[in-house]
């Protein structure tokens, strides 16, 4: 089983996780759904297992980066060719998976990111967060020399080339921005497609106001220092 894997990171999302799993099934039953329960203290893992998902239970909270990379490593070790990442809180609509998968399936991109800000309307986050996202978007676009509008989006599809990189090396806590730059520096082809995101299905966002500031400073520092580094080394098939 598992030449296609859907990675669903989830921290205490018992209310929404079932719907996310069923949504992915409805989109394409060929996907093995791998829920990474990131030290959840509620019934996320039980509910996910009840819906037939593979559940990786982390013994304590690793943060979103560590959780997603657990899924990447699982997918890599199972020889998976195609990976999507769908957040467990229900803000990513599995019905839109077709849009982010298309460029990967067509061989036009290695990493495809669903963006809230290209074209379509729908759910928009708070104003301060939008400003923060714009600063990061501008920085990332300048580094990768390509227009990136939503660098914090976790709604992504990737092929095995990208999986080889991210299974080997993936940023901690809030990974998407740095991962975008890493991918570019390893000469992976990036593409953004418009998607509509929903309000969270239940539970609370793990990002608070103080956190957003810390997040911005930390990520900008990481982006800056990374300019002086050699690119990360991907894994290789045995």
């Amino acid at each position, binding site marked *: 089983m598992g030449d296609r894997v859907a990675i669903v990171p989830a921290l205490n999302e018992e209310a929404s996780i079932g719907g996310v799993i069923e949504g992915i099934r409805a989109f394409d039953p060929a996907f093995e759904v791998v829920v990474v329960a990131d030290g959840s203290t509620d019934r996320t893992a039980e509910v996910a297992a009840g819906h037939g998902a593979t559940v990786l239970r982390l*013994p*304590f909270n690793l943060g979103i980066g560590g959780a997603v990379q657990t899924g990447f490593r699982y997918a890599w070790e199972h020889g998976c060719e195609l990976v999507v990442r769908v957040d467990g809180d229900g803000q990513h609509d599995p019905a839109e998976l077709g849009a982010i998968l298309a460029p990967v399936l067509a061989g036009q991109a290695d990493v495809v990111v669903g963006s809230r800000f290209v074209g379509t309307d729908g759910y928009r986050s708070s104003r301060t967060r939008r400003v923060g996202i714009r600063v990061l978007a501008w920085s990332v676009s300048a580094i990768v020399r390509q227009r990136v509008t939503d660098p914090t989006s976790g709604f992504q599809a990737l092929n095995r080339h990208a999986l080889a990189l991210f299974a080997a090396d993936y940023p*901690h*806590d809030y990974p998407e921005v740095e991962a975008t730059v890493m991918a570019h520096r390893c000469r992976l082809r990036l593409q953004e497609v418009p998607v509509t995101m929903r309000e969270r299905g239940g539970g609370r966002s793990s990002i608070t106001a103080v956190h957003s500031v*810390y997040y911005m*400073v*930390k990520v900008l*520092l*990481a982006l800056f*220092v990374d300019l*002086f*580094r050699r690119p990360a080394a991907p894994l290789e098939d045995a």
Partner: protein
Amino acid sequence: MTPLRVSIAGAIASILLLLVVFELIRSRRLKERYALLWLATGVVLLVLSVWRGGLNTIARWLGVTGYPPAVLFAVGILFVILVLLHYSTVISRLSDENVTLAQRLALLEEELRARRR
């Protein structure tokens, strides 16, 4: 007034600290999240070293009338205390996680052995 040599020495020391921290991050021996406080330390000490008028003003506010550079030491010590406190919380979390990991491993080993029998 702060002696010029003290300002120069302070500035050089701060810049060295910033360079060392930068190189540690670059070579991946220091994670960004644990580097932020060190960088703040370096920047604040650098500012107070270079901005001599500011250091004197702050010293006056604090009632340090005899020797303004004492404020530089005080601020340096304050930041070192902050960094140490931060690390203490980090170590506490790590030791908790380490216990959890060892326990999970022991349980897994036991289950593996039970299955082999």
